[in-house]
């Protein structure tokens, strides 16, 4: 074998080594409060739905593409950031009849397990802390996108879940304001 052949073999071996699949590291993303939204809807008097929003959620999510079970998500938002488009209603919702936001200032979710359910869908089980009560809930998650923003990798997920407010001790005015609250959470985070 001449020197030229050895050199060719070395280059082929090296390129073969470089193209081997490398186990992706879990990536940690910090929730971007400006581009993340928490919406909810609740039925009014058994008629139409009233929509509201919590502003500036914070937290982080860890994405492990190879082993989704190692992924996690933690989100918290201030209860008094609630906005339903009507100041009087917002004040009422923040008061003792509903959120009691001066007592229970933070609403948070911390996942305990993440399971992959489809190509870009996941199921996150975890604890929702709301109105001083902690309960296990299941959030259906969908990966909504991945891109480079200002030189940093950003990822987006959308989560949906439904709770009964009476399970969290909010039992006032159940005849007029629905018990079921449906949440839709859009999280965008930049890699840490």
């Amino acid at each position, binding site marked *: 074998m001449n020197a030229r052949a050895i050199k060719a073999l070395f280059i082929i071996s090296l390129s073969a080594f470089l193209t081997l699949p490398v186990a992706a590291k879990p990536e940690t993303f910090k929730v971007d409060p400006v581009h993340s939204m928490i919406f909810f809807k609740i039925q009014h008097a058994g008629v139409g739905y009233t929509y509201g929003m919590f502003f500036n959620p914070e937290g982080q999510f860890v994405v492990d593409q190879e082993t989704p079970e190692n992924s996690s998500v933690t989100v918290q938002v201030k209860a008094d950031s609630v906005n339903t488009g*009507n100041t009087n*209603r917002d004040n009422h919702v923040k008061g*003792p009849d509903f959120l*009691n936001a001066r007592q229970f200032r933070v609403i948070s979710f911390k996942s305990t397990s993440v399971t992959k359910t489809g190509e870009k869908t996941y199921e996150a089980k975890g604890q929702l802390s709301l109105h001083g009560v902690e309960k296990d809930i299941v959030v259906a998650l969908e990966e909504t996108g991945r891109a480079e923003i200002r030189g940093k990798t950003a990822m987006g997920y959308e989560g949906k879940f439904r709770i009964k407010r009476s399970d969290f001790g909010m039992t006032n005015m159940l005849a007029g304001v629905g018990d079921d609250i449906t949440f839709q959470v859009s999280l965008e985070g930049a890699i840490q």
Partner: protein
Amino acid sequence: MITGQEILWAYVLPAALVLVSCLGVAFTPRLKTGRWISNVVIAVIPAAAFALGFWQLHGWPGWVPADTTQWVMHFALLCIVIGLLRESHWMRWLCLMVLAVVFPWFLLKPIIQYDWTTPVAIAWITVYAMVILLHIGLLEHMARHLNAFRLSMILTMIAGATTVVLSLSGSLSLAKTSGILAAILLAAFLVSYWLPNKGFLLPLIPLFVVVMCGMWLSGFYYAKFNVINTILLSGSVLLAWLGMWIKLETRPAWQKFMVHACLAGAPLALAFVLALMQFMQNEANSY
């Protein structure tokens, strides 16, 4: 929004309990007012009736309730012990002093934790403890010197006005709680027609002060109860006490009664008008 079930179990039943037990005191010679057993009835039944009403409205709050406004029920039950300590003057005031400090401390724990520095918290808790003790002192003085009919009318007016103002100020849950006391006091007012004896309502005073101060503080710190309404409602106790000193010996009893009612009722009426005006303003932006 109050359901028929809530009215029945949280208001009618507690009021009926107080009515029947107090009538029992009024018409049973062995249970005549002033005796130890009558003190037991007046101390135990209203506080237990309040707890029953509270349980029906909000469920039974666990020990260390998640919602600090629910401490009012535990302290209402503690008032049974204080009501029973009528004979032991020093022990009673010691218990009242502990209650006066611990109650606002527990009620305002989130505010102490998040909003106040330690010196500010100590200052405010001291102020509220003194206000609670002052209210108890003034009302007990009135209970000893006024007939029960006049006193129970004033107490019912204050609890009723607090209930209405709270409901107009955007907290139905606090208004409902306050309404239980108003219903109980209305029953005591009816009974006092047959049992107007001075001192009859003495064991009820700590319960009244705990629930009312609990509602005023919770309304102010956790709901949108404005400072003027809080001062007017709590100030009505002071005005009612001052009303005792107006010399009207030559006037008929009904005129004395009306003057006293008007004096105690003036700040309550003003608080109601202010709350109503605010409510009407908000109606333009109703939801």
